[in-house]
């Protein structure tokens, strides 16, 4: 009877906990695939060659392979968090969501300007990376992708946390912090003068 139950469970279960051996092999596979995809980037963005792009920040998110790298990077983060033994699965998903959104906020909406000097006499000095993308053109494909990806992550996180209230509050706050700055109405807006100069 017990055996039958186990078989029944197996056929419907989706195992989210891996055995040690399987886990280490999967980790290796993910690492090498990330490396492989990153290195074979034949980007539209010409790396290491002379190009006439005044501000490369505007084009980097359109480069070939960067969306995949980004997705794999989020996957890596999730796997690393999963491998910490004392986090439960809902905690891991919430942590993935929060860390991803925090990273996205810091790099896209908090840090301003460029790490290199541009020949346009500092036009983008006061703009965040999100505002610099595609020279301010709204609703381009990379902007859509980076708006939709935290939403997908949020759906996954709320599913795996079983719609728990505490997790809901944290995940929703984190999602809003990353969705609201992406609205076209908030292009160049600095609330209360924070981060203006």
């Amino acid at each position, binding site marked *: 009877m017990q055996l039958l139950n186990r078989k029944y469970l197996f056929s419907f279960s989706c*195992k989210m906990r891996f055995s040690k051996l399987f886990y280490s092999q999967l980790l290796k596979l993910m690492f090498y695939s990330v490396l492989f995809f990153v290195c074979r980037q034949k980007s539209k963005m010409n790396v290491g060659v002379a190009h006439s792009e005044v501000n490369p920040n505007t084009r980097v998110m359109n480069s070939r392979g960067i969306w995949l790298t980004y997705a794999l990077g989020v996957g890596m983060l999730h796997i690393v968090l999963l491998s910490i*033994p004392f986090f*439960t699965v809902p905690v891991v998903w919430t942590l993935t969501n929060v860390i991803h959104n925090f990273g996205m906020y810091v790099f896209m909406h908090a840090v301003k300007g460029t790490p290199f000097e541009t020949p346009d*006499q500092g036009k983008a*000095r006061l703009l965040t990376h999100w505002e610099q993308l595609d020279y*301010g053109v709204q609703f381009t494909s990379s902007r*859509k992708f980076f708006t939709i990806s935290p*939403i997908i992550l949020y759906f996954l996180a709320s599913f795996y946390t079983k719609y728990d209230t505490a997790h809901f509050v944290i995940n929703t706050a984190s999602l809003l912090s990353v969705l609201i700055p992406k609205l*076209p109405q908030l292009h160049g807006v600095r609330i209360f003068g924070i981060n203006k*100069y």
Partner: protein
Amino acid sequence: MASGQQWVLVEMVQAFYEAPAYHLILEGILILWIIRLLFSKTYKLQERSDLTEKEKEELIEEWQPEPLVPLVSKDHPSLNYDVVTGFVSAVSGHISEEMNLPPSHKIIVNGKECVNFASFNFLGLLESERVKLKALSSLKKYGVGTCGPRGFYGTFDVHLELEERLAKFMRTEEAIIYSYGFATIASAIPAYSKRGDIIFVDEAACFSIQKGLQASRSFIKYFKHNDMEDLERLLKEQEIEDQKNPRKAKVIRRFIVIEGLYINTADLCPLPELVKLKYKYKVRIFLEESMSFGVLGEHGRGVTEHFGVNIDDIDLISANMENALASIGGFCCGRSFVIDHQRLSGQGYCFSASLPPMLAAAAIEALNIMEEDPGLFRVLRDKCKHVHKALQGTPGLKVVGEPLAPALHLQLENSSGSRTDDLKLLRAIVDYSLDRQIALTLARYLDKEERFLPPPSIRVVVTVEQTQEEIERAAQCIRQAAEKILK
């Protein structure tokens, strides 16, 4: 890992059915948001145009094309230019041969041999034998051009040597060479000052400074020529604004751009007061020394030596080597921390071919001459004073400039109101002088491009090669011309 649970799909789906309503509603809104995003078109943010289609059509119909070549009168000054040839038929020793000599102290204008009172050959290095020999040997060694910018096989040992020598001569840490004098300050200013920064400039700044300011896209504030109160007023206003918005003030940079000896007005800048203002209001000073390098100061180091100001107080000194040093190109000198930035950010340095090594060698030799014989500068200063005194009292013309300045301006005392008429009168004086074998020139400007167009003038240049008697003759000639033409 608590209680070793396995996440069963059935349990998850059950949780989905039992999910709170607000959560599911929020997810529904987010799905709608995704759909809206996927179907929205890309657009630029400032697409609004305040004109309707009809108004646009009206404007297009109204427009009349200007002629490609505007009509110009036959006696426009640019159509009647003076032709300079260097051909001198000379008798050298016992061989009578026609030697081709380039113009220097003597110049042949429109076929007449004249004494040169128009070229900026202050120290007479243009016909120095030593410089010529050095240049010739350098020509044999390196050829003519470098065929590349400094970063792309265009750096020769003469360039590095010239930079070192200039830095040592000016007693700064480092110097950088540009291949074109006009481009020196025009590249240096936009390398440091970007959008949002503030530059305080004198109204009499020369054209290359104006082009540098334009390229920098910064806020430009002009103060009246040599008027330190006006500058202080502007600095105080800026200080008040900075106090209102300290976070913005921390991010913007402030500069003062001045010339040591102004080309357009031939007077000195009050450098000690400027250094005081610099430290009071925390502004950086860029000093343009094209006319004063090799002229002022006991050893020719420029206006800082003349006033006894510590050279480390000036953040950047820029000069062109086309005047006293009788070469081509320009240099900037200052602290290493400042000058090194231009090696990647100076547009004229990175993207222009470097100085031909022949000219760099000539400049080094000129520096040698300057260092060996500091008496030259005293001779030049005495001659300048002499010329200044001799030209005083010319009827109808006033002498604009300091007694120390080697390039003086003669302006009309009573302007007729129209610039073209003034220019015609002055041109008549120049023609009269050319007939009497004194070569003078009108100061030329791009009338439409200059911000503060100076009044028309004749520029009289003093060099060490001019003898006492030539100076007397020139002064006499100008006086006669003024009496005759300007009565």
